[in-house]
């Protein structure tokens, strides 16, 4: 006699299973759960669970003074710490109708771009790992390390600088380390160039990532997708150029776009943006003006303001409403991953399981999800499969394509090799 509690097999959905991705993974900083409904190898529906660690930061901010809030907001993200604190300052400065002094604007630019460089390198490494290109992972993370060191030399900390302040910056950079910062940048410039060329020239990568996880320009607008994910679909959106803050309006740099909308385009955009960030940093070091660090804001009158900031992952938006006291009545924070992750509804449908990992990773979400995967059950009551290996599947797919092309399944060292 059967004691099975599985539901009767639904007609026409013999092959339909539910794959759980997440919510926990030791590599990543935040838990998120994805639920893929698959028919055989094809994904037919995606759902996300985001309720694991709501930190209540917006409400906490309503109980902090304007001076304290930037330090609280640095704790929103372990990677884009400068992002949220400067974005908040942009919002309050919009409310006040003021612009911080030149030196403060350049310092914000420098720490913002250093953050973008180490964040993009982090992504390049992880993306390499997800498709089995572990050389890329090793290189990118090796190159990232000196950038974090420079961040520490200039600000005193590898991630949370505590430098942004409404109306300026709290402290000066430690300028005695600028020569060392320049030396690291010079070295990084060559490394990034080599990495970019190696990725662009690799036929396996092109075969593996072209046409995977495509977002159309219309989907970009509909889902409100921002940052490199939008720019890789040919949508030229970049807050640094569109709604300039800090010193970006005075510097010479390009908004990088690519028309294809696939994962390969997203990788190319990020790699080329690394070179632009290095260009911005060099100019900012050269032109770093003297003068005041802060306007010395003492009072924020009643009113409202909207701050925008181009985070490594895209546009960050803060809305601030003041009632004239020393704490805001409301602070709304929208990080770029909030809209980018929702676009999985468009980019993952129809994809094969082997492509989902890299498609989910392609918008550089604050990941948390992608490796520790379990299949809970077969929704149609069939055989329960354990898929502890989404990444292994993704890496197998790369090896298959490499074998077909008669190539090694990893990046080939260019002449001269990696340093």
């Amino acid at each position, binding site marked *: 006699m059967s004691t099975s509690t599985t539901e009767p097999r639904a007609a026409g959905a013999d092959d339909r299973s539910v794959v759980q991705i997440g919510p926990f993974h030791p590599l990543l900083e935040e838990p998120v759960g994805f639920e893929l409904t698959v028919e055989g190898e094809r994904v037919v529906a995606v759902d996300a669970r985001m*309720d694991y660690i709501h930190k209540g930061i917006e409400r906490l901010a309503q109980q902090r003074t304007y001076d304290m809030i930037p330090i609280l907001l640095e704790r929103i993200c372990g990677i884009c710490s400068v992002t949220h604190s400067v974005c908040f300052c942009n919002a309050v400065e919009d409310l006040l109708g003021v612009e911080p002094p030149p030196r403060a604007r350049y310092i914000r630019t420098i720490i913002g771009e250093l953050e973008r460089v180490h964040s993009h390198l982090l992504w390049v490494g992880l993306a390499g790992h997800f498709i089995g290109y572990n050389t890329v992972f090793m290189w990118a993370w090796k190159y990232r390390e000196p950038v974090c060191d420079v961040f520490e030399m200039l600000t005193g900390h590898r991630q949370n600088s505590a430098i942004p302040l409404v109306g300026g910056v709290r402290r000066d950079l430690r300028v005695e380390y600028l020569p060392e910062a320049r030396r690291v940048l010079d070295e990084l410039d060559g490394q990034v160039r080599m990495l970019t060329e190696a990725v662009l020239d690799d036929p396996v990568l092109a075969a593996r990532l072209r046409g995977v996880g495509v977002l159309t320009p219309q989907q970009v607008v509909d889902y*409100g997708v921002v940052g490199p994910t939008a720019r890789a679909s040919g949508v*030229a*959106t970049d807050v640094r150029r569109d709604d300039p803050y800090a010193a970006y309006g005075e510097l010479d740099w390009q908004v990088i776009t690519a028309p294809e909308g696939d994962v390969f385009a997203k990788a190319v955009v990020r790699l080329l943006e690394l070179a632009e960030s290095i260009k911005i940093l060099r100019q900012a070091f050269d032109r770093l003006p003297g003068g005041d660090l802060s306007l010395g804001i003492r009072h924020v009158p009643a009113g409202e303001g*909207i701050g*925008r900031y181009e985070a490594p992952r895209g*546009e960050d938006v803060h809305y601030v409403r003041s009632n004239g006291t020393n704490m805001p009545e*409301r602070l709304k924070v929208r990080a770029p991953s909030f809209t980018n992750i929702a676009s999985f509804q468009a980019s993952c449908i129809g994809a094969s399981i082997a492509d989902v990992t890299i498609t989910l990773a392609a918008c550089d979400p604050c990941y948390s999800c992608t490796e520790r995967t379990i299949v809970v059950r077969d929704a149609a009551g069939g055989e329960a499969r354990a898929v502890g290996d989404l990444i292994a599947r993704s890496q197998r797919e790369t090896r298959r394509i490499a074998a077909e092309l008669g190539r090694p399944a990893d990046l080939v060292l260019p002449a001269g090799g990696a340093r």
Partner: protein
Amino acid sequence: MTTASELATELQRIFGDAVDCVARSPRRLYVGVPPERLLEVFEQLRAWHPGFRLATSTVLDLREEIGVFHHFAINGESLVVTLKVMARKPDPSVPSLAPRIPAANWIEREMHDLTGVRFVGHPDPRRLVKAAAFPDVHPLRRDFDPVAFKEEIGEHLDY
């Protein structure tokens, strides 16, 4: 480039006194809209410029009513347009934008979780940021008391 005052003039020409436009700077426009005309004004925005995307929305408790502020931006431009609708307590509700623009889906679910404002016509009104085990209270309401809440629930929710 679109400026806030140009768009304000245009919206006032179409909707007259029904909308309350305040251009706080050339790049920031705030438009008060009655809830029953929200969808109409939204469609007008998109007709005026098809590139308007929903950047995000803010919800806040204003004692007698709940404010829902939708912030729209255009890729490649500096303008941010905020459509403000007010929902009266005790049963605050506003029309949902989610059937017309996918970007509204998640943020409306979040706003409902935090303040209990209902989005009429939302295709998928499940919780987003509030865990399943979290009681049916709204932590961003002014009358929410975290200390009393902790005493009642204990330090840990059972997931």
